[in-house]
């Protein structure tokens, strides 16, 4: 606690001085002041290179600096932004035409090469980019990887066979083709993700090598450019890029202010020292509506909270045990009492924001029925002691404890919530096959598709399938979905796959999240999207 408090105390005066500096304008005429800047809360981004950024804070900054190929409309269907068109006849070879007129902030023209260089860099194994798995679908990805023969040992991994993806071909300066390893009907959808931003020539010191210091001042093709450099643990400042050909932002710039503690940001937005607090902490939820009135807002996002059963713990191997535990949890009580309705009870395995979502796919297993749950649990011989392991830095204690209390009461078992400091500590225990009990998991989609909720989480060897679930039928259906000719056919396959999950219950769906954010009296039209990112072209400053 001492450490956390310290952080808060250092953040407060800092934030206060910055806030004062930002409070420049503020006349009384007109509706919106295009020359004013706004301040937005983020956490320290992990990276600011598009192929390596997958945290929402990094995405927030990059979304101001870059314009994506496609973005998503209200129905979460992709529409072109920096791309003129994205077409394919066979779902295997995709032709991407770029809009003319886009330039990088240093004046360089955005060309096909800007994309090809960036994607090759992201896919090249030795670069260790966090988003490299997005390029897996492109032909030639395997040739860019190499395995270290002795793990962490002294031998070095051999050079990969190739430096560039064979599936990427330049046609002319504004056209290129992408050949996939297998047909994939939703390739256009995933192009909206951060990983698919372009990189300018200026980012590279040699072909395939990112220049030192590029990450501290990324050069993008978006509506804002960097002002100064990334000041670690303090702020990232951006200003409007006037040569941007797309939708112009209504503000002159923004300061992304880095907070270590959510409660400090909340205190700042209360006192108008911060304009947008993207995540109102759970502990402030019950008072936020009175504190802020209509400046406290909620919007849909794509997050999905669940608990998973590690397959190495044999006591959970019977589906009936898992089903009984699920039926003993009163989801509505927890969303009401703990989350003050800021989250929604989940009874399906995919978020309502994606096409193909159906209500109540898990049926009886997700209905609260304590008597039936207890009968089922005892008949199936469930363990007398349960444990829910969670990461202690994410504000999960309250609901984990409440869930445990419900299991205690409704199943007549002992239950404890065990906190690990960070999610990575939790994963270390899971990988070491230690008895962790149920594990807390959360998922925020990368691109709006059912596949993004099914593939990484439940397919054998899925990138986030930490609990080891494996079902060949499920794998096959997801695979058939990704190679289906049309999105509608794909959805049908995905739904069949989801039905398998409902009968086997490898995880227990608990809640769908929402953005709960707050803004100051200075700003209006604040919108936070499905990815927890503030829409930088819509926000305005009241003058």
């Amino acid at each position, binding site marked *: *606690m001492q450490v956390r408090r310290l952080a808060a105390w250092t953040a407060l005066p800092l934030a206060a001085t910055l806030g004062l500096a930002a409070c420049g304008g503020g006349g009384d005429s007109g509706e919106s002041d295009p020359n004013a800047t706004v301040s937005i809360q983020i956490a320290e981004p992990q990276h600011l290179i598009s192929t390596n950024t997958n945290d929402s804070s990094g995405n927030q900054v990059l979304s101001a600096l870059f314009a994506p190929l496609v973005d998503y409309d209200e129905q979460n269907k992709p529409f072109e932004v920096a791309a003129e068109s994205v077409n394919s006849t066979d779902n295997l070879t995709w032709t991407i035409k770029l809009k003319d007129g886009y330039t990088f902030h240093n004046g360089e023209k955005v060309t096909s090469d800007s994309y090809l260089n960036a994607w090759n860099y992201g896919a090249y194994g030795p670069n260790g980019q966090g988003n490299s798995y997005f390029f897996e679908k492109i032909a030639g990805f395997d040739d860019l990887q190499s395995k270290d023969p002795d793990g962490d040992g002294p031998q070095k991994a051999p050079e990969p066979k190739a430096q560039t993806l064979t599936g990427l071909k330049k046609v002319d300066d504004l056209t290129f083709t992408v050949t996939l390893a297998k047909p994939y009907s939703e390739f256009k959808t995933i192009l909206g993700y951060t990983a698919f931003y372009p990189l300018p020539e200026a980012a590279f010191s040699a072909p395939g090598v990112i220049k030192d210091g590029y990450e501290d001042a990324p050069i993008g093709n978006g509506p804002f450019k960097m002002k100064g450099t990334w000041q670690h643990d303090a702020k990232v400042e951006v200003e409007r890029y006037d040569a941007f050909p797309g939708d112009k932002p209504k503000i002159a710039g923004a300061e992304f202010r880095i907070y270590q503690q959510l409660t400090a940001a909340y205190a700042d937005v209360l006192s108008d020292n911060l304009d947008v607090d993207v995540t109102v902490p759970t502990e402030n939820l019950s008072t936020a509506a009175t504190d802020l009135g209509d400046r406290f807002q909620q919007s849909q996002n794509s997050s999905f909270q669940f608990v998973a059963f590690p397959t190495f713990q044999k006591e959970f191997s019977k589906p009936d045990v898992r089903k009984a535990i699920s039926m003993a949890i009163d989801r509505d009580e927890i969303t009401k009492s*703990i989350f003050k309705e800021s989250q929604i009870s989940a009874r399906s395995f995919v978020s309502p924001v994606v096409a193909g979502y159906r209500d109540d796919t898990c049926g009886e297993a997700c209905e609260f029925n304590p008597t039936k749950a207890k009968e089922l649990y005892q008949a199936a011989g469930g363990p007398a002691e349960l444990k829910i392991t969670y990461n202690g830095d994410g504000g999960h204690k309250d609901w984990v404890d409440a869930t445990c209390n419900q299991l205690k009461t409704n199943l007549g078992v002992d239950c404890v919530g065990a906190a690990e400091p960070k999610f990575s500590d939790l994963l270390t225990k899971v990988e070491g096959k230690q008895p962790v009990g149920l594990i807390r998991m959360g998922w925020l989609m990368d691109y709006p598709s059912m596949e993004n909720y099914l593939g990484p989480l439940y397919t054998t060897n899925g990138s986030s399938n930490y609990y080891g679930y494996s079902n060949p039928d499920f794998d096959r259906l997801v695979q058939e979905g990704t190679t289906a000719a049309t999105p509608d056919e794909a959805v049908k396959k995905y739904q069949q796959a989801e039905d398998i999950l409902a009968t086997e219950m490898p995880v227990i769906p608990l809640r769908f999240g929402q953005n709960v954010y707050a803004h100051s009296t200075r700003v209006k039209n604040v919108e936070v999207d499905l990815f927890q990112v503030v829409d930088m072209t819509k926000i305005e400053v009241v003058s």
Partner: protein
Amino acid sequence: MSELETVAAAELSGGKAGSADPAARPRSLAGDAWRDLRRNPIFWISLVLVLAVTAMAAFPGLFTSNDPHDCTLARQHAGPGGGAPFGYDFQGCDIYARAVFGARASLLVGAFSALLTGIIAITVGMLAGYFGRWVDAALSRVIDVVLGIPLLLAAIVMLKRISSDSPNIRIIAVIFVLAILGWTTAARVIRSSVISAKQQDYVAAARMLGAGNGRTMWRHILPNSLAPVIVVLTIALGSFIAAEATLSFLGIGLKAPTISWGIDIDAGRTHMRESAVALVVPSTFLALTVLAFIMLGDAIRDAFDPKLR
């Protein structure tokens, strides 16, 4: 100190009572201290509190009939009622029942840390004070080194290594960590009183009568240098309880399902604005207990210290 010597010397030689009060029974140091203590209201207040907390730790059922583990969200922040005089906390647990049951962990940690501290301190202090010379020099440097380690910081580092979630193992770990880091003051006190006792005539007499090192230390010096240590340990017991609560508050001491005031204070803190009772009740229990032990130790010290008389 003069009284102590005469009484001890008189006992040793089997002679008559000391010269201070020829009329009545021999006045011992303890007798004088007791006479002082009886008139000290602070002593009585703190003694009652200490006894009350001890009873709570031993027989929590006498104080509440509610199960502290019986929590349901339906009662979240509900007011007093149903045998819960202070109402219910965020998770719908009985605040009072949890505070009562929290006494056990705190007292266990406090008492056993103090006991272990006493054993380490007496061994080290006795050896250093009795043998002097290089033994003293070496042991005193060890004391200096341990004294230089910040208790909380070192406890955090050590307890982070304990990954077990078993309640018993965590309690034992906390006891050991606090004892290992907290024995130095008591050892210094023992050392200095052993040094002064060693030079007394009755020690020389025992030596002359052929008592070996072990017997001299155990039978003659130890009983006469114990009083100040008991006082130091009583005060330390209070601070160990506070240290346990601090570590549990930080999430690295005791962990659920063990009930500890530190854990409850942490939980109450996050929902302070909705209901402060869940924070105030365990804090008050903790503050009163720590204060009681420290005041008790203070009162006893004042009574035993002839310089203050």
